[in-house]
């Protein structure tokens, strides 16, 4: 039985096993039909031309966690941003770990999707927001059909959440192969501000496939900063689907740090439903070996006077492959749109490759849209200059790569997170020098 058949036939058993209200039940039932009809995407589809899921779909994944596994904090502390106080929503093999988490209902809700889907007091929010931003493509629908657990965050209006929220999904490798489908919902009401850091981390060499969906609603004048750390091991793959629905005058940013994993596909979609909205999409990709990272972005400018800023840097070594597919749609009504997109890449090895493709669909006539992509090698004259001052080749290379990705790092607003990312990059580049660029 292939994975698709296995998932479809598991659906009924799953649907009977979870607590659900009627609304979610209908949504899930519709979703499994969409997945059954469309199946997993193949390279024949334009949006998947450069990313094949074949090699990861052939594993015999366990689609439901059979048992709960415990992790002690010291074992996994290094995956947390632990030098500052944060809220934490932590999952182990798809199950909530109250032991590692720190949630709250004190004025804001930082808790669980399973609770939001089952308890009457959340019913109105679920009916207003759940699956309202998500696209109806096959992978998102697959997640929707099985959506039962993940992070649920609701910030009512006029709240500045001082502590960042960490969402971490651990997989322990207890099953020979595990498929996880976390589902997150983030609703930020008028004038509120929240910062979220998300990470997926496999702790063993057993294959893990995560098909994650996050819906984010930034209501009027809300500010949402979302950071994704993707630094998983060579047997872990991630399909990360994120949908951000913005209302007027809201600011939303997503930073994606793609440093590892076997295959990573980021589907990042922004919808601007209001005027004077600002959307920021930034990313640093540094990979090697045979790793593959695909950034597939969409910014949909629907109303006038909005901005979007995209800046993706990629550094590819060994036989790694990258894809950047950035689509910007400017509707006829969306006059005075400012949309910027940049994708700059460095290929360190002859065998690494990147496919980069900007896609602009502009129907308005009074807009500023720019896009640019570059693919290059490390600047040899800069290398000689640095080495002639005593900086060894490896360190000089690392310094140049840091400098190359620095303006993305600069816009990280949490200093401890910025430090952590810097450290991860230094580790990846195999250097031990203090970068404070």
């Amino acid at each position, binding site marked *: 039985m292939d994975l698709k058949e296995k998932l479809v036939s598991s659906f009924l058993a799953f649907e009977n096993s979870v607590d659900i209200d009627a609304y979610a039940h209908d949504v899930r039932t519709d979703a499994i039909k969409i997945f059954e009809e469309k199946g997993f995407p193949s390279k024949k589809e334009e949006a998947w031309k450069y990313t094949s899921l074949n090699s990861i779909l052939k594993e015999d994944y366990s689609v439901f966690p059979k048992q709960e596994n415990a992790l002690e904090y010291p074992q996994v502390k290094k995956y947390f941003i632990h030098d500052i106080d944060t809220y934490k929503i932590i999952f182990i093999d798809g199950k909530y770990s109250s032991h590692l988490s720190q949630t709250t209902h004190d004025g804001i809700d930082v808790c669980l999707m399973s609770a939001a889907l089952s308890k009457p007091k959340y019913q109105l929010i679920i009916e207003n927001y759940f699956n309202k931003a998500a696209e109806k493509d096959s992978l998102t629908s697959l997640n929707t059909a099985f959506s039962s657990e993940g992070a649920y965050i609701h910030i009512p209006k006029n709240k500045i959440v001082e502590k960042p929220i960490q969402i971490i999904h651990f997989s322990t490798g207890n099953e020979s192969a595990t498929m996880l489908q976390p589902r997150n919902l983030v609703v930020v009401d008028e004038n509120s501000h929240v910062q979220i850091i998300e990470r997926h981390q496999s702790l063993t060499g057993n294959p893990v496939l995560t098909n994650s969906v996050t819906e984010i609603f930034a209501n009027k004048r809300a500010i949402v900063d979302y950071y994704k750390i993707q630094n998983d091991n060579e047997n872990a793959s991630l399909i990360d689907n994120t949908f951000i629905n913005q209302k007027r005058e809201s600011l939303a940013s997503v930073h994606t740090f793609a440093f590892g994993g076997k295959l990573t596909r980021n589907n990042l979609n922004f919808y601007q439903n209001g005027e004077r909205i600002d959307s920021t999409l930034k990313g640093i990709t540094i990979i090697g070996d045979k790793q593959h990272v695909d950034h597939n972005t969409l910014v949909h400018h629907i109303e006038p006077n909005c901005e979007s800023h995209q800046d993706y840097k990629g550094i590819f070594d060994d036989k790694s492959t990258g894809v950047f597919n950035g689509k910007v749609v400017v509707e006829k009504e969306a006059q005075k749109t400012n949309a910027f997109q940049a994708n700059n890449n460095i290929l360190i090895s002859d065998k690494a490759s990147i496919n980069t493709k900007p896609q602009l669909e502009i129907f308005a006539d009074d807009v500023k849209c720019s896009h640019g992509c570059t693919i290059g090698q490390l600047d040899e004259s800069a290398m000689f200059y640095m080495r002639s001052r005593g900086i060894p080749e490896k360190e000089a290379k690392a310094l140049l790569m840091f400098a190359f990705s*620095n303006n993305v790092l600069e816009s990280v607003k949490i200093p401890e997170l910025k430090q952590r990312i810097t450290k991860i990059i230094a580790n990846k580049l195999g250097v031990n020098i203090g970068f404070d660029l």
Partner: protein
Amino acid sequence: MLKINNLHANIEDKSILKGINLEVKPGEVHAIMGPNGSGKSTLASVIAGKEEYEVTEGNIVFEGEDIEELAAEERAHKGVFLSFQYPVEIPGVSVTNFMKTAINESRKAKGLDDMPAKDMLKLIREKSELLEIDRKFLSRSLNEGFSGGEKKRNEIFQMAMLEPKLAILDETDSGLDIDALRIVANGVNKLKSKDNAVVVITHYQRLLDHIVPDYVHVLYNGKIVKSGSKELAHELEAKGYDWIKEEVGA
């Protein structure tokens, strides 16, 4: 300190240096002059260890050791410094951070610990004052958007920080106005001692009015064709290079 014997060097099979002999002793200042395309910058790059050039014959001995097989950073650690004719812009790396990295990597190579931050700051302040460099300048990206004069001043600032045994100044005077020239020359002179040496590569006499050479060499067509005292530089300034070409051709 530096002894170059019958040095031949190629780039992509094109022969540029065709048998250079040069000896520089501690405490000396040498000027290398010559028309465009004679191989002056190539000589500087080859001494500093640029990999694009291939040494086909002869050798470079620095402090009693053959260095032509060493990487550029290893030569730097031994005390060779090249002030670039065209300093490279490195966006995203600040002057301060670059210097910190360079100094600490050099210390690491010598088995020393990183320089304490306090000492580093003191050193930076001291040397930037010597070159009359504004503090704000130090947090800017290395050479990015610097004027020609600022770039050259920054080169000598780095030289002051690294305190090399042998400094090669490749057309450090080009792009400098008269005030900047004075500041740069003054910086070099203050760094001069009986233990280190300077090789000045230039087209013009004017830098040599400030940094006075003990010896002047004329490089032409990949060879040193004439050597003399500082008077030779004046003669070249007055008469140009044609008479030398004729002498060599004859």
